[in-house]
């Protein structure tokens, strides 16, 4: 294809269907959400009114909404940290075991079996675990989900149980991609077992490890399903399991004792969007570049 005009014509023709759907139902709604957060459309007669940062001021200064917001943000940080500290190390260990070179033919079977929980819907995961830890079955004698201190860690661990296969697969394929001669050279130089892993393999997969950290951040700050499936939209006990996703749902969709508010919902969504965007941008512009220096 040499003639530019023809190239442009075919590019437009082939890309347009995907571009249209993607822009209409993903890019535009996200941008539009940001715009909507500067408006008040509650008064049907007056129509949409531009009110600047009033929605934000309300969200952060009204005692009820601000208390709910900071509570949800704190819980969301905890939800993320538990994933970071439990899911990623164990996922890495699983990947290291799968690629240790002693398994031979059973690798595929382990890989598939360990990933199975990630194929379930959260509704099923939530129910399975609620039943397993319920005092009715007597495995655990303590109401883990009914206690303000233990409810969120318990739900987070259920989510870790479900999604642990994802970091495992990422890191597994990254480990497989390491060229053999590097490992041979390390072996000749006398490196063994865990030394090889930490000194040679891990630095080489650091970019993928970084990527899975940032993806976990995005997924947990965008979380909703497991909390809603277990505790509904006003997640108890006493909002101790309320995260930004459930707060967003409640704000714009309403719930018992709370009126639905589209603009305030869009405001909450925009705040979440920026929480995700800022950290992701910092990661890609600062950290990922440094990690790239190790890449082969």
């Amino acid at each position, binding site marked *: 294809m040499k003639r530019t005009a023809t190239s442009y014509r075919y590019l437009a023709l082939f890309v347009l269907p995907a571009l249209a759907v993607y822009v209409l*139902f993903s890019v535009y709604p996200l941008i539009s959400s940001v715009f909507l957060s500067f408006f008040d459309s509650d008064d049907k007669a007056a129509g949409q009114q531009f009110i600047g940062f009033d929605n934000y001021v309300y969200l952060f200064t009204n005692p009820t909404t601000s208390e709910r917001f900071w509570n949800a943000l704190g819980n969301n940080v905890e939800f993320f940290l538990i994933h970071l500290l439990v899911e990623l190390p164990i996922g890495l260990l699983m990947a290291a075991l799968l690629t240790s070179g002693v398994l031979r033919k059973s690798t595929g079977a382990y890989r598939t079996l360990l990933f199975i929980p990630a194929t379930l819907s959260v509704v099923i995961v939530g129910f399975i675990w609620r039943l397993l830890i319920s005092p009715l079955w007597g495995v655990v004698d303590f109401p883990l989900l009914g206690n303000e201190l233990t409810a969120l860690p318990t739900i987070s661990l259920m989510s870790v149980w479900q999604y642990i296969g994802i970091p495992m697969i990422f890191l597994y394929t990254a480990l497989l991609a390491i060229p053999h001669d590097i490992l041979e050279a390390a072996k000749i130089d006398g490196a063994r077992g865990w030394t090889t892993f930490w000194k040679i393999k891990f630095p080489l997969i650091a970019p993928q490890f970084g990527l899975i950290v940032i993806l976990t951040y995005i997924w947990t700050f965008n979380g909703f399903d497991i909390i809603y499936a277990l505790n509904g939209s006003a997640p108890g006990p006493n909002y101790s399991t309320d995260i930004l996703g459930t707060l967003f749902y409640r704000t714009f969709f309403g719930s018992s004792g709370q009126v639905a508010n589209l603009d305030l919902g869009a405001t909450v969504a925009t705040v979440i969007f920026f929480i995700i965007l800022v950290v992701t941008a910092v990661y890609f512009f600062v950290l990922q570049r440094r990690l790239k220096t190790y890449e082969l």
Partner: protein
Amino acid sequence: MSTQTNRLHSTVTHALLLVFVVLAIGPILVVIMNSFKTTEGIFSGPFLPPNADTFNLAGYENVFKRGEFFLNYQNSLIVTLATVVVTIVFATLAAYALTEYKVRITPLLSGFFIIGIMLPIRLGTVPILQTMISWGIIDTLLALVLVYTAMSLPLAVALMMTYFRSVPNELKEAARVDGAGEFRTLGITLPLVRPGLAAVASITMLPVWNDLWFPLILAPSRENQTVTLGVQQFVGQFQSDYPALLAALTLGAVPLIVLFTVFSRQFIQGLSAGYGK
């Protein structure tokens, strides 16, 4: 020494992995097993397999008696299949063009699509809802298909681009010399990117089938409920009928587990190639 250490190494590795497998699969097996028991059986010995006294299929009968379950299945199938097909067609066209026609805006367009892998589309729900209402397609399966396609496209485009890059240029040039048009040329490359198509299909399927958020907001009425939403409401309504609940959960989980087991290689390939590149 090396054979002995190797054997020890291998035993420890297998043992650790087996522990992880039991932790991953055990809870699922407990639920499936208990779905074949009576209520007394479920509570008197939750970790015992069903025996002559406790074996019971009433749970499944009760689930099937409520007609919605089939309807939910049908809805999930329609939404998932339609999303997968539309995503594959649109993503293949776009990815082919983005790797084939190198003009100034091509890298920009590719980047614009790939950024979408990181976009939390759920946060655009308020405008999505308004669009669906103004288009008159709120509470339809079509609304779900459109949103899920938008959600799946970025990863699908990125993935197909990595596969199209591996197609030799000579093949396409030869086709063009023989007078094939651009659509025909794309058609000729398709068999070479078949693993990519399978990978896109398998990674698109799971999040769509399992999503709870958009069915809750865009298609909540009884006749449009998907399996995930249906099971969620079933759990809420029938707290006391444990055999039926467990049967519903089993029916909701098993097809996906089977499908995943069959396509696990394509799925894993897709997941790693799509995000890794």
